[in-house]
């Protein structure tokens, strides 16, 4: 089970019975209504929570208020946003339903979820405030990033209040500069002399002299928790003057001193109760009874509540409490010092109680804290499927990492779960050790048909049964990453044999891996068959996120097969799915569509899709998208005739290259070599071929097909400048062999390209009938799929050949279609090329200054705008020009004559 939501975290804490009025601070909270963020930042015990609760209870104009008390568990982004939405819904029921379903059901990144939530918040008709208390417990960077995003897009009627012991890592300086930040800090919160007097004498009824109040105020420096402890120590004491004298003259850490004083005055059973229950982050009667082993937990809590012993009620019915954090920390330190041997046992009792009461995550937390790793391991093993389903992978990983190595050696299901968790996040280190732990057991029980042997520990028996299939799938995945094709195939086939009909993950994963292995071998038909079967199986199992990542690969396979229309359908479906389910991958689909539009010679649409991809942001794409985007943009620039920009983009792409599981069938250096050829730098391309040790006599393999075709291009290009029969002969012989291999592998895209090159080779040798015969074959294959750039990219000699074909009626219709396309774009020069989106007047101003030596801040001053605004303009300019830096922007603007 995943974590049940704790309602108590959403309650505004009850106001204390008697309070020192803090009207100066309340006034600042009320007048800060215009600011997006209010930060209440001070150490423990400065009355942050109390102040906010008082404000919400007394402000007559107080907006709808949502409250969330955070704890360490919300470092899991999925859980954090679930709670934030639940808190908001207590105040504004209409918001967050869709965002919540996204958190629960999908594998998407957090930004679409926050974005969906923001849409709802923009629509609320009234003012509202969200209070996040104890924000300092949040350390997870992805949570902070989500919060920064929320803050940056917060609608004007919404106000955020963050309270904690440390300043949050959010862009505070910018907010401060824009007057969007109200801050209440320790210096503001500490009691003034008047407030201290009012508290000690009026609230606590101590009747102290001004000198005594001054002594206490001076010693505590207005630290409220310390004054409270001091007051508790003095209540009912005869020698108050003596106490104050002793306290003021002592150098000891204040809280330690005072808690000691308070504890000394408690009966032994109360003292023991306080120490033993200090390990709990929340307390109720039954839990305290279980942990202390003494009856009467509930009565004890009520007594402590009455005595005001730093107990905070978490709900109206006073079922759940917590200690004031500062008090709890001091109690725990004392417990560790006085009864170090009992700490683990107390945690184990708490774990037991939580498991019996249906909160498995908290049971795991206490089992780990109590170092009962066997217990923790069993609980974690059972929670793996639910935690994965609920997307609490971050929590799961943290639990697994907290377990000592030995635990995994005897727990195959847990080990396999760990291996799966690591592999799903692309982490390979440590996977092998986990797999070996599992395999040792599978070997010993292989004849036992699924019966665990005595020395091993299995809690989740259903998972144990699928272990052989899972292991084979993991092995296939590892072999794939190591480039071991026969190993991948053998293990994937084994997984398919071992998996049951309903083991969708194992079946789907294995079939996909088998497909990838065939792809690497260049057998595209088998690759497509297996890969699409794998995807269908995963779909049956509900693994939607994997389907979108798979769409990129499946479309790649289709493109290699020369089935561009099928590829387009795959991208369109993928895009729709990613949008509907707020899944990662929409950015990748746009890049894929751009590639296909470019092939159709619709360069505007190609650029538009790249822009759309970039606007979705990095979070909307997989890890390969940054290099794929640049390759696609380079190809568009190349088609537009901007070869310099194309080379720059390819260089960037090469730096960003991320292979993942896919076959690297179009290496970026080979693409660069092709652009070099187009630039007339054939020597460059031939040097590349030498460096890659490519030769016309190589044995052909699919993985080097693109490089070999590039080599043939380089040779043909050299022949045009330095005619030489030997060069031509080598090129044509290589093309002949490449054609046979591509036809055998069902690689339609390569077949068309090779045929076009053969046609050009024949033409160069003035063998027109042979040239037209090759061209006709290429055109016949191209027409149904709409290939255009495959011909236009070949330049003027191809245009001449197409003209000849058109005259002779060879594939006449399609040749004419291509010629008209060539006419439409042939005249385009860099200077006339329009932008997808024109620059605004202001952006042109910024662009003008980007050409100078002025720094960013100087430009901002010159234009009298904020640095932030300037940066936004610059970003837009870069996006519209399709560049990444100032130098490139200036160069591109010159090319465009802007």
């Amino acid at each position, binding site marked *: 089970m995943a974590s049940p939501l704790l309602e108590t975290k959403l309650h505004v804490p009850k106001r204390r019975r008697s309070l020192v009025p803090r009207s100066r601070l309340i006034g600042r909270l009320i007048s800060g209504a215009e600011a997006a963020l209010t930060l209440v930042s001070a150490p423990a015990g400065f009355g942050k929570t109390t102040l906010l609760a008082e404000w919400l209870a007394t402000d007559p104009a107080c907006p709808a208020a949502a409250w969330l008390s955070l704890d360490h568990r919300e470092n899991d982004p999925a859980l954090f946003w679930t709670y934030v939405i639940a808190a908001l819904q207590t105040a504004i029921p209409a918001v967050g339903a869709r965002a919540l379903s996204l958190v629960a059901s999908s594998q998407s990144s957090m930004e679409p979820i926050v974005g969906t939530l923001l849409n709802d918040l923009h629509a609320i008709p009234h003012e509202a405030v969200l209070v996040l208390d104890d924000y300092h417990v949040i350390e997870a960077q992805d949570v902070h990033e989500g919060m920064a995003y929320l803050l940056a897009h917060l609608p004007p009627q919404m106000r955020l209040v963050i309270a904690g012991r440390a300043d949050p890592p959010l862009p505070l300086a910018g907010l401060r500069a824009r007057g969007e930040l109200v801050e209440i800090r320790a210096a503001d919160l500490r009691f003034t002399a008047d407030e201290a007097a009012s508290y000690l004498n009026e609230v606590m009824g101590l009747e102290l002299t001004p000198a005594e109040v001054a002594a206490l105020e001076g010693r505590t420096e207005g630290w409220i928790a310390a004054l409270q402890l001091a007051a508790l120590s003095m209540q009912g004491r005869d020698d108050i003057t003596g106490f104050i004298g002793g306290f003021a003259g002592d*150098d000891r850490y204040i809280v330690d001193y005072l808690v000691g004083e308070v504890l000394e005055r408690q009966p032994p059973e109360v003292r023991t109760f306080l120490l033993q229950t200090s390990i709990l982050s929340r307390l109720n009667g039954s839990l305290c009874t279980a942990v202390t082993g003494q009856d009467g937990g509930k009565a004890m809590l009520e007594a402590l509540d009455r005595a005001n012993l730093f107990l905070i009620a978490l709900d109206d019915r006073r079922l759940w409490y917590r200690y004031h954090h500062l008090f709890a920390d001091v109690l725990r330190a004392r417990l560790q010092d006085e009864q*170090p041997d009992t700490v683990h046992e107390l945690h184990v009792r708490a774990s037991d109680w939580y498991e019996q009461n249906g909160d498995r995550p908290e049971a795991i937390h206490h089992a780990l804290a109590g170092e009962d790793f066997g217990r923790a391991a069993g609980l974690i093993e059972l929670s793996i499927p639910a935690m994965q389903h609920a997307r609490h992978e971050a929590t799961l990983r943290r639990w697994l990492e907290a377990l*000592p190595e030995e635990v995994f050696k005897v727990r195959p299901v847990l080990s396999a779960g760990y291996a799966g968790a690591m592999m799903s996040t692309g982490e390979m280190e440590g996977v092998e050790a986990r797999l070996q732990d599992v395999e040792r057991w599978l070997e010993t029980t292989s004849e036992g048909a699924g019966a665990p042997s005595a020395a091993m520990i299995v809690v989740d028996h259903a998972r144990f049964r699928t272990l052989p299939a899972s292991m084979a799938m993991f092995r296939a995945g590892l072999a794939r990453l190591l480039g071991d094709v026969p190993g991948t195939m053998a293990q994937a086939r084994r997984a398919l044999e071992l998996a049951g009909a309903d083991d969708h993950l194992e079946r789907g994963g294995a079939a996909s891996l088998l497909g990838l292995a065939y792809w690497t071998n260049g057998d595209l038909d088998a690759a497509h068959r297996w890969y699409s079967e794998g995807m269908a199986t995963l779909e049956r199992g509900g693994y939607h996120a994997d389907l979108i990542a798979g769409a990129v690969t499946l479309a790649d396979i289709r493109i290699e097969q020369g089935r561009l229309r099928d590829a387009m359908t795959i991208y369109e479906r993928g895009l729709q799915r990613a949008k509907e389910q707020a899944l990662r991958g929409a950015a990748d689909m746009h890049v894929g569509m751009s590639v296909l539009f470019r092939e159709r010679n619709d360069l505007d649409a190609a650029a538009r899709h790249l822009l759309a991809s970039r606007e979705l942001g990095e979070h909307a794409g997989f890890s390969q998208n940054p290099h794929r985007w640049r390759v696609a943009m380079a190809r568009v620039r190349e088609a537009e005739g901007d070869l310099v920009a194309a080379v720059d983009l390819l260089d960037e792409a090469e730096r960003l290259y991320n292979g993942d599981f896919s076959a690297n069938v179009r290496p970026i250096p080979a693409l660069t070599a092709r652009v070099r050829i187009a630039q007339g730098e054939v020597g460059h391309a031939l040097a590349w071929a030498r460096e890659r040790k490519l030769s016309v006599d190589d044995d052909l393999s699919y993985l080097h097909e693109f490089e070999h075709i590039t080599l043939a291009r380089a040779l043909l290009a050299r022949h045009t400048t330095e005619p030489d029969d030997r060069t031509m002969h080598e090129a044509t012989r290589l093309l002949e062999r490449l054609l046979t291999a591509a036809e055998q592998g069902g690689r339609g895209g390569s077949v068309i390209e090779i045929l076009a090159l053969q046609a050009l080779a024949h033409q160069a040798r003035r063998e027109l009938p042979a040239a037209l015969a090759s061209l006709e074959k290429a055109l016949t294959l191209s027409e149904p799929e709409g290939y255009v750039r495959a011909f236009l990219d070949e330049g003027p000699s191809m245009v001449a050949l197409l003209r000849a074909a058109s005259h002779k009626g060879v594939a006449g219709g399609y040749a004419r279609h291509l010629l008209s396309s060539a006419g439409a774009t042939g005249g385009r020069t860099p200077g006339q090329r329009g932008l997808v989106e024109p620059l605004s007047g202001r952006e042109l101003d910024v662009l003008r200054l980007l050409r100078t030596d002025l720094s960013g801040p100087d430009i901002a001053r010159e234009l009298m705008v904020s640095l932030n605004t300037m940066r936004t303009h610059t970003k837009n300019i870069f996006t519209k020009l399709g560049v990444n830096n100032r130098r490139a922007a200036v160069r591109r603007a010159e090319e465009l004559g802007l």
Partner: protein
Amino acid sequence: MRPHHMAPYLHVMQADDSTEYEIRVKGHLDPRWSAWFDGLSLTKEPDGTTVISGPVVDQAALHGLLQKLRDVGVPLISITQVSRDVA
């Protein structure tokens, strides 16, 4: 999860490459706090400060210590890395 909560899960490490630190705080901390600060030694100084010193495994552990100080509201005065004598 903050190191504070991780602490119970971490096995005590006496790595050889740990670094000695001296953390000076305001007020006298009783030796009982030694267990709370993972066994580091506490020395009360005549100027009313306490020096918490000993080996700290790495930067993450150091930040964990600082958070513990923050959480109990002990004012921090200085942190110094102490070079150890070569044995």
